[in-house]
């Protein structure tokens, strides 16, 4: 059982690290704020989620695992919310995505 858990945990840790790396490359390489936020959101959600789950498997049935699980829950709530709020603020302040034709039938509060 232990090797299986270890293997799964390392898979999650390495996978999480990979997502963080991809997110980092994305932030540097993608053209505008919205696409970069997409990359940053990857680090926020998939990256931290997989790393923390991997750490929970390493911790076993302890108080540390419970604390890590609580961190997962809070990050799952706050990470996407922060990404949404940032995108919303950028949109409302008039920043338009690059290389994209904006549809003409946008709701009224999003038109400028």
């Amino acid at each position: 059982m232990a090797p299986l858990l270890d293997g799964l945990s390392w898979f999650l840790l390495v996978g999480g690290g990979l997502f963080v790396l991809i997110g980092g490359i994305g932030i540097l390489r993608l053209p505008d704020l919205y696409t970069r936020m997409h990359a940053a959101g990857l680090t926020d959600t998939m990256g931290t989620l997989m790393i923390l789950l991997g750490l929970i498997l390493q911790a076993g049935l302890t108080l540390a695992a419970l604390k890590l699980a609580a961190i997962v829950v809070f990050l799952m709530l706050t990470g996407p919310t922060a990404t949404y709020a940032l995108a919303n603020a950028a949109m409302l302040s008039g920043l338009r995505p690059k290389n994209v034709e904006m549809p003409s039938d946008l709701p009224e509060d999003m038109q400028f």
Partner: protein
Amino acid sequence: MTVLFGIFLLTLLVVTAIGIVRAENLFTAVILGGIFSLLMAANFFVLDAVDVALTEAAVGAGVSTVLLLGALALVPDREERSARGRRLALAIITLTGLTIGYATFDNPHLGDPDAPVHQHVAPWYLEQTPILIDIPNVVTAVLGSYRGYDTLGEVIVVLTAGIGVLFLLGLPGAFGDRKPEDVAAGKTYLNHHLVPQVVGLLLVPFIMLFALYVQFHGEYGPGGGFQAGAIFAAAIILFALIQGEREALNLIPPRVLVVLMASGALLYGGVGVLTMLLGGNFLEYGVLSSNPVQGQQWGIILIELGVGVSVASVLLAIYHAFAARGR
């Protein structure tokens, strides 16, 4: 491994500092300042100073960033460039930096057991705390009991800073001039952002619970009044951002806030006077109970409560003062 983390974090700190200096947009500078504090908190954590790390994260990265953003609402967000005196400033900064760098060569190495800081009173604190106060977190013992005068001074400094800001900006409704109902009537910052509103409201009670945990668990783990006060203020500020100034001011009216500011410091000083009346010295908690060890614990819990109340209400009052001006 610790050295590797240290080098990584310190390099990021330098990069962030250069970013702050180079930023012309003050909004960018404030956000970079928050990142600087967060990196600093990680640094303190790597150095095993968990209490300081918690304070830095809560106050430096959290509340002070919000307060600076509140201040930015009052001023233009572009830095004014002045060409005069820049060479002189650069020369002075370079000279100071080189002097400080030169002075670090005399510093003991990291973790050196022969360093003066580990030779002076620290061994005594570590040996005597289990006997005299019997709490696991020596930092709280040092802060609350051995160095109780210093901490009282810090609380007075926080209170004075709060009074200063209120003198400069004023707090509507605090002294009966305007009612909270008049303040920011119906104004909510996020009222058309449903997702942040729902998630934010969901988080507020948990942040408050965490603040109480940090407040009352300070004897056993990292934490205490300063951190708890900042976290509690952050929870109310989040509530104010979601539900609007008016709701937050109804929750804790400005008149109450001003009383709370003073009563926190008063509670701290009052414990000192009480110990004097009971026949001890100022802030000698041992006399509070027939058992001196228990008296010490009671004293620390009471003064930590005073610190928490003062810090939370001062931070909230400053936030409300900025928010009332920003409209």
